[in-house]
Every structure is written in structure tokens, then in C-alpha cells.
């Protein structure tokens, strides 16, 4: 482990931090065409993430276009406003409960 390694205070590689740094670098477009050092950092970061996932690198991780799009697609769906019908439904179920208990 070198000084570039991303680690938590307990010495374990911090996957979250590694992901952040990776996506930051990718947004900057840095390491695709810059020198060795950037690639080394990327290797170390990817390695830190890979170790957390029992060895093999993550094929749907931040290095992967498919992985990034998948998360973008899903996050958009998750952040969609929830219609009122669902909280109304749960309130109805709650009200209906005492009646069920009598049966």
C-alpha cells in the first residue's frame, strides 16, 4: 500500500472514496490521455475497490459506461415523486386492521 492508496482509518480500502475520486477524475477527463502517474493512481484505486469485492474488478463499477448509465437510469426513477395514492393506501390498510382483528 502506497501513499496514494485510499484507505479508511482502520486501514481498509474505502470503496466509497475510491468511487468518488474515480468519477471525479473521469469527469475531468484526466487519465485517459495523461501520463503514467494518473494510470497508476487509477490502478491503485481500482485495486482498492476490487479487493473489497473479493478480487475481480467490478464490471458494473464507475469504470464501466454500462454501470454508470444503469445507475443514472435507476436513480432517475427512484427520485421520481411518489403519488399520494400510496400513502393513502397504507392509511387505509391501517384503518382496516382493527376490523381484521375481530375476525
Amino acid at each position, binding site marked *: 500500500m502506497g501513499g496514494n492508496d485510499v484507505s479508511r482509518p482502520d486501514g481498509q480500502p474505502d470503496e466509497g472514496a475510491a468511487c468518488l475520486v474515480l468519477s471525479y477524475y473521469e469527469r475531468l477527463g484526466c487519465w485517459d490521455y495523461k501520463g503514467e502517474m494518473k494510470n497508476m493512481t487509477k490502478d491503485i484505486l*481500482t485495486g482498492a475497490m476490487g479487493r473489497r469485492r473479493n478480487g475481480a474488478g467490478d464490471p458494473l463499477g464507475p469504470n464501466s459506461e*454500462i454501470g454508470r448509465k*444503469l*445507475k*443514472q*437510469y435507476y436513480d432517475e426513477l427512484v427520485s421520481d415523486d*411518489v403519488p399520494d395514492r400510496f400513502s393513502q393506501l*397504507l392509511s387505509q*390498510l391501517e384503518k382496516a386492521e382493527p376490523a381484521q382483528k375481530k375476525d
Partner: protein
Amino acid sequence: MAAVSQGFKTDLLGAIPSLRAFAVSLTQNADKADDLVQETLVKAWDKHESFQPGTNLKAWLFTILRNEFYSQMRKRGREVQDSDGIMTARLAVHPAQHGQLDLKDFRGALEQLPEDQREAIILIGASGFSYEEAAEICGCAVGTIKSRVSRARTRLQEILKISGEDEYGPDAISAQVTGTAAH
């Protein structure tokens, strides 16, 4: 029947955005998805006693939703597997430039996957489940999930014309972009 606790209700409410996202991913239709979520909530409420507190509520709910989805499909007599063919030809996707892939194209590509592959790649790549959890949700072996995810990924790359990205680790990407691999 034991009363449903307030905590359980709050947790159900909190899970709705994820349930809706998973339901849309499965059905590819917003209205059907919301009906599916509604069914799931009613089922979950009815059998709340079978949920073990302290275990993963989200995984439990996803299992119910998924079972409901497939049982509805069977009732309608629809063929579950919609593998290669029919849909594939309908959508022409422009070759994606690296990192420039449009979300609309991606959605279209995702739609073309067979259900089993689509759900696997969503559970692993987007919903944040482990392979073990996804296997539990889908009622299959961990190895089956792994191969479905892998086939889904390959298929998406084909449809979107992304050439084998990160197939050989990070070096392949930099090589691709700098063009060193081509020489």
C-alpha cells in the same frame, strides 16, 4: 393477527421509491409499475408477520414484487422470456461515442433485454444488492445471477455498440482512448 407496527408502516413508505424504480424496470410501463407496487404493499401488509425484523426489508419487498410480477404475467398467459428477435430490430441505436451515451438510447437498449437478464443487472448494478441477495430475491443460484448479469452486460454493449470496455482492466480503457491498442 398482530397489529402492524408504526415502524413497519414508515419503512414501507420509505421503500416505495425503490419499489417503483424496480417495478418500472421490470414492466417498462409506469402505470403497470404503480399497480404492481400497490399489490406489493397490500401483500406485504397482509403478511407482515412473516417478515423477520432486523433482516433486509427492501430485499423482502423486492421478492414480493417480483413474485407478483411473474404471477401476473403467467395469469395473462404472456410468454415470460422475450429473448432475442422481435424487439431487437425495432430500435436503431447510433453508435455511442465513449462517455457520450444517451440515456434514452440506454433505456431503449435495456428494454430489449429478456426479463431475467434485465432484473439481474438492475438488482446488481443499480439497486445495490449483493449477488447473494439477488439470488435470494430471484429464487435461483448465485451463479445463475452472475451469468445473467454478464449476458445482460454483453448484450447491452452489443446493442449500444460499446466495444468491450474494461474487459481487460483499466489499462484497456486508457489504451482504447489513446489509441495505443490499435497500433
